């Protein structure tokens, strides 16, 4: 055994790991809430302040909860994906307007389009704390029993939607 080959051997192993590392996303953090019941909230609706939206009202169907805000750049990025998903009618996306001004949020939806049947207003960010929101946008997949099944940190994209979220929704809807 040539001892001068040792550095090369070590290097090959490191490169192997770096190669695998490229395919992973270090920012993808497992959420402790996955597998737990979605925290309930009862918050005024954006378009009609007199009405409230409550998580318990949505039991019995699979739905997405999307935290967003008019001041958030990433929300702009994922917006076309949400619009497309909403138009496909596969799953309802409920919006949570996070720490935002009502008129800004309404103007934003008017300008870019509204993928949400109902948007709740989380002005104080309390619901965000209960859901462990790091930053907007974040999206939760919640099943018929009201259990969180998946959490997406950061903008949704077509890739995540096709490979993770849509198959999961299909599975959950058939349960």
């Amino acid at each position, binding site marked *: 055994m040539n001892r001068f080959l040792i550095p090369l051997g070590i*290097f090959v192993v490191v*490169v192997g*790991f770096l190669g695998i590392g490229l395919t*992973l996303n270090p920012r993808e953090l497992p959420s402790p809430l996955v597998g737990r019941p979605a925290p309930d909230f009862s918050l005024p609706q954006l378009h009609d302040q007199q009405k409230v939206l409550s998580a318990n009202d949505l039991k019995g169907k699979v739905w997405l909860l999307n935290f967003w805000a008019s001041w958030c750049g990433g929300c702009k990025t994922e917006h076309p994906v949400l619009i497309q998903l909403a138009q496909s009618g596969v799953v309802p996306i409920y919006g949570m307007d996070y720490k935002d001004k009502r008129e800004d949020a309404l103007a934003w939806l008017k300008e870019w389009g509204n993928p949400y049947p109902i948007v709740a207003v989380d002005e104080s960010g309390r619901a965000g704390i209960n859901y462990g929101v790091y930053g907007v946008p974040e999206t939760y997949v919640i099943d018929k029993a009201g259990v969180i099944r998946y959490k997406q940190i950061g903008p949704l994209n077509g890739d995540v939607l096709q490979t993770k979220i849509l198959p999961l929704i299909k599975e959950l809807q058939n349960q």
Partner: protein
Amino acid sequence: MIPEIGHYALILALCVAVVQGTVPIYGAAVRNSALMSIAKPAARGQFLLVLLAFCCLGYAFAAKDFSVLYVAATSNSQLPLHYRIAAIWGAHEGSLLLWVFILTIWMVAVSFFSTHLPEAMRARILGVMGLVSMGFLLFMLTVSNPFERLIPAAFDGRDLNPLLQDPGMVIHPPMLYMGYVGFSVAFAFAIAALLGGNLDAAWARWSRPWTTVAWCFLTVGVAMGSGWAYYELGWGGWWFWDPVENASFMPWLAGTALIHSLAVTDKRGSFKAWSVLLAILAFSLSLLGTFLVRSGVLTSVHAFATDPKRGLFILVFLAVVIGGSLMLYAWRAPRVGLGGGFSIISREGMLLGNNVLLVAALGSVLLGTLYPLFLDALDLGKISVGPPYFDTVFVPLMTPAIFLMGIGPLAQWKQASLPELAMRLRWAFGVSVVTALVLPIVMGQWTPLISLGLLLAIWILTTIAVDLRERLALAGGGSFFGRLTAMPRAYWGMVLAHCGLALFIVGVTMVKGFEAEQDVRMNVGQTATLGGYTFRFDGTQPYKGPNYIAARATIHVSQDGREVTVMYPEKRRYTVQNQTMTEAAISPGFLRDLYVSLGEPLEDGAWSVRLYHKPFIDWIWGGCLVMATGGVLAISDRRYRLAWRRKEVEVPAGTQMARQIVS
């Protein structure tokens, strides 16, 4: 038009790099002088082309040309000119251009200061550097072109990350890159020697000054990065063992080991294969650092935009460059042969010990940096490795290294006597131990770590004193001052660099042991006391900067009733990116820093305020500067000046010989 010229210059530079990376190396293999002589003009031509590209990008920033994507992404019309210029290296594409630009600067330097080298050696060195620059130019032109257009042009730019809008950021990256890329010279020397099979003491002698210069730049660069983190991030820390900090620290450790191992190869002919390996390692770690920052495989506060294509390119490049060199090493190094033998108790033995410890420290930093990635890749979960790990492994490895550092310079080459060394150093040891034990008690707090830190620092200084006294006594004759100046500058350089490390250790020890901090809610007019200083909060005023608005607090600091200073910490909001920044106020001093940063506004004009008293913290960076100064002193040594001067005599002889070969 100007950006297109820059883009075109880069393409031409790539063509030149291809020629420079192949023809001279081939020429050296077949001993064709005409082919080898292409290396020099190619290196200089490439420098001019990259310089042109760099100026074009600089012009685009200065002229606020927001039709260039990179300019629009990293600057803004309200950004002051000096930050617009610094924005050239404010993000991925531009910092790559800086990388290549600095590489070409080193190439030109080699082309000018290498006339004393055999032609084949020089051709191979410049050829290897040409190959490296070819890789980076390809990287830029394929996946990270700084001259890419944005059509239609942006109305205004997205602004430079506010964290980077700081004078330190203007100089930190160029310094750091001078160091990183500087190791490419030592690397090219090593590869050239492996290719040519002439791995001898002369090779080490030629490599030494280049390695030292690169090391000096890297030392200053890392220190500036740490200083920047200290005053800009507003947490009062100076080193976080963040992956990107580690990425700059690992080449430093390898470079430090290399400097010491080259000294042995130069003086005694030993450690040849080891020095070559270290030269490859130092540059490989610089490349790895680039990969870690650019690829997004690790999370870090230095989050550059990540793109899997870029990561893949660098990984392949890394595999080719490092894998290729290590293969060459495995093939050629066995034939190098050993140098003179030596006993374990000798200067070589001490330097070997120092090298082993430095490399072990380097290995543990590398492991700690990549460990989260390893676990993630093996699907064993997500973890992060933090300061507790690094502190735990680093101190036990550095303690014996520094102990050896005191003895090494006093030990004889080849064979030294342990009892004799012990006799010579008994006073130094006694003084160090006693001072280290007593001093903390005098200062009011004793912990084992404070004593250990002081012990190491004082040990360095006292052993230097012993060494100096012995050498002066041996020098004999002449006045005291005459004998002092008669000693070679290389020796003084070493002394200074070692003293710098002692100052650094004092700084670290004192800050860790005696710093105090306080989080307080302060109403207008309220006072808080910390470390014997009284801080009075006099409320905040709105303040408007060129591209930010701020709340600026006024804090009067007094000691024993006398006013010491007034501090103005700020909470800034940069309007373009709507990002809030804490601008800490620091009152620096030789023996302590006072550090105030604003937390959050509370009701009635009150604020949460964080106060720090940091004794000796500036010694940390001062020590690094002293280390780098030692390096500069060492390369100004007479023998290098002689080598440069001798070339003037040698040049005609060399060209004559070349002509003979051609004809």
